[in-house]
C-alpha cells in the first residue's frame, strides 16, 4: 500500500513537472532548440575548437598527433610558399572586392532605371551566382585554355595580339584570370543586394533635390550613397568574407599553380592537410586565416559603418 501511494505521488509529481515544462517558456524554448543546437555544437563549435588544437599538433592522416605548441606556426613563418599564399589571398580579396563593388554598384544603378522586362533582366543577371561555382569555373578553365582560348582567338582576329595568351601558365596572368572569374561570379550578388537597397530609398528625396536644381552627380553623392551606405557595409563584409575564404574557383581553374603562384590560404591548407596528409600543418594554415578574416570583417564593416553615422550626424 505504502509503495503504491508513493508511486502515485511520484506520478503526480512527474506529470506536473511535465506540464510545467510545457508551460514554462524556458523549458519549452530549450526543447525547441535541441535539434539546431545539437548539430551546431557537434559539427560547428566542436570542430572550431578541435581546429585550434590540431594546429598545435603534428597529426597526420591515420595517426594520432603529439602536442608541439607553436612549432607549426614557427615553421610556416619560414615557409616562402605560405607567405606567397598570404600575399595571393590579400591581393585576390582586395582587387576582386573593389572591382566587384564598382561594377556591382554601377549595375545596380542601371537596373534601378525604368526598364522594360525589368524582373526578367534581374533574374538573368543573378544567374552566375546561382549556378554551382565549380561548374561555371570549368567553363572559365576552357575559356582560359592555352591553345583554344576564345579570348585569344578574338583578340588575334581583331589584330590586337599576335600570339595566344598563356592565361594560366604565367604567374601574373593566372592571378588576374582567377580574379576575373571571381569578379564575374560576385558582381550579381553585389548588384542585386544593392538594388534591393536602392529600392528602399524614397523617391521624394530625389524630387526634392530636383526642385533644388541638383545635378545627377550631386543626387548620387548626397542622396544615394549616404542612404545606401549601411547596406553597402553589410554586402561588402559578406563579399570580402566569401572572397577571402574562396576555395572552389582556385581549386578548379589552377589548383594553386603555376608553381604555387595562385595558391590561396584555403587551397594551400587543403593541399598540405588532405593531399599531403599533414592535418596539423593544414589546420595551422586555416587558423592563420582567422586573424586576417576578423581584421577584414572589422575593417569593411566598421570602416563603412562609420560613414553612416557621419552622414547621419550631419543631418
Amino acid at each position, binding site marked *: 500500500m505504502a509503495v503504491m501511494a508513493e508511486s502515485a505521488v511520484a506520478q503526480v509529481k512527474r506529470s506536473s513537472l511535465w506540464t510545467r515544462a510545457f508551460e514554462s*517558456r524556458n523549458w519549452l524554448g530549450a526543447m525547441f532548440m535541441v535539434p539546431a*543546437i545539437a548539430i551546431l555544437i557537434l*559539427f560547428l563549435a566542436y570542430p572550431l575548437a578541435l*581546429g585550434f588544437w590540431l594546429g598545435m599538433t603534428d597529426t597526420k592522416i591515420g595517426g594520432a598527433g603529439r602536442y608541439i605548441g607553436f612549432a607549426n606556426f614557427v615553421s610556416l613563418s619560414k615557409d616562402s610558399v605560405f607567405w606567397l599564399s598570404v600575399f595571393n589571398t590579400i591581393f585576390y580579396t582586395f582587387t576582386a572586392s573593389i572591382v566587384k563593388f564598382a561594377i556591382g554598384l554601377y*549595375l545596380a544603378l542601371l537596373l534601378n532605371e525604368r526598364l522594360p522586362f525589368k524582373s526578367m533582366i534581374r533574374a538573368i543577371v543573378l544567374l552566375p551566382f546561382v549556378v554551382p561555382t565549380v561548374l561555371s569555373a570549368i*567553363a572559365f578553365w576552357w575559356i582560359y585554355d592555352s591553345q583554344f582560348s576564345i579570348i585569344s582567338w578574338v583578340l588575334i582576329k581583331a589584330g590586337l595580339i599576335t600570339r595566344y595568351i598563356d592565361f594560366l601558365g604565367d604567374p601574373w596572368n593566372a592571378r588576374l584570370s582567377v580574379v576575373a572569374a571571381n569578379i564575374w561570379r560576385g558582381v550579381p550578388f553585389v548588384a542585386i543586394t544593392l538594388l534591393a537597397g536602392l529600392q528602399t*530609398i524614397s523617391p521624394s528625396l530625389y524630387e526634392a533635390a*530636383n526642385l533644388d536644381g541638383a545635378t545627377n552627380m550631386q543626387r548620387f553623392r548626397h542622396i544615394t550613397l549616404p542612404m545606401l551606405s549601411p547596406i553597402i557595409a553589410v554586402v561588402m563584409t559578406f563579399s570580402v568574407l566569401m572572397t577571402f575564404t574562396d576555395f572552389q574557383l582556385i581549386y578548379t581553374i589552377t589548383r594553386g599553380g603555376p608553381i604555387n603562384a595562385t595558391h590561396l590560404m584555403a587551397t594551400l591548407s587543403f593541399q598540405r592537410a588532405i593531399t599531403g596528409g599533414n592535418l596539423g600543418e593544414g589546420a595551422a594554415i586555416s587558423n592563420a*586565416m582567422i586573424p586576417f578574416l576578423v581584421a577584414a570583417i572589422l575593417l569593411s564593416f566598421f570602416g563603412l559603418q562609420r560613414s553612416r553615422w557621419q552622414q547621419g550626424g550631419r543631418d
Partner: protein
Amino acid sequence: MSTADDQSVGMDYLESFPRKFLRVYFPLGLIIFFLLFPFYWMAVATFKPDAEMYDYEKYNPFWIVNPTIEHIKKLLVETDYPLWMWNTVIVSVSSTFISLFASVCAAYAIERLRYKGSRYVGLAIFLGYLVPPSILFIPLAAIVFQLGLFDGNLALILTYPTFLIPFCTWLLMGYFRTIPYELEECALIDGATRLQILVKITLPLSLPGVISAGIFAFTLSWNEFIYALTFISSSENKTIPVGAITELVSGDVYHWGALMAAALIGSVPVVILYSFFVEYYVSAMTGAVKE
C-alpha cells in the same frame, strides 16, 4: 519585400531615346553579355563534335555546324555521372529538410518563446553564419572519420546543416517577427499549445519565408564543394561538382566536351528551380544581408 514600381525620377520622359540608349541600355547590354557568355560557351562546347572543337581555322568557334550529343551520351554511359546526380539530389534534399526543421524550431523559440538568454543564442547562431567552411573542413574531416561517416552520403547530410541552419534561422527569425503577437495570444486563450500555434498559425503565415529559406538552402547544398571533396573518396559516392573535377580529368588529356556537358547538366536543375522561385530566392539573399 515591397516592390517599388518606379523609383526613377519624374522627369525621365524628357530624355531622348538615343541618350538613354547610350546611358543605360548599352552598358547594361554589355555587362549582361559578359555575365552570360560563359554559359553560352558551355552550351556550345557541350553539343560540338571534337573535330570542330579543336579546329578554329576551318570552323567558326562561335557556332556549331553539326551538333552532336556524343559528349552527353559518353558522360551518362561511361562515367558514374547518373550516380553523382542521384547523390547530389539525396544530399541536397535531406540536408535542406533537416535544416528547415531545426531552424523553424530554433527561430520560433528565439523569436517567440523568448526564453532566458534567447538574444545571446540568436547572436551566437548569427556568428556561426560567419564561420567559413574552408577553416572547418580539416577538423570536420577528423570528426567525420571518427564517427565512421567517411565516404558516405550521411557525412554530407549531417555537415551541410552547419552552414544552412545559421542562415535559415536568421532568415526565419525575421519572418516570424512580422507576425502579430495578437494572433498567438488569441490561440493561447483558446487553449492551443505552443506546438499547435507553431504548426497552425505561425508556419502557414510565414510560408513565403520558409520557401525562401528552403530554395536558398537547396541551391547552397547543391553548390557545396569543399566538404564533399574532403569527406568522399569513392567515385560512386561523389556529388556532381566533385565528380566532374576529380573523375573527368584524367592525366593531361581533358575531355572538354564531356566536362562541359557535366557542367551544363549539373547546372540545369538549379537554374530550373531558381527560375520558378526567383522572387523567393532574391528575398532570401537580400533578406539575409539586410537583417
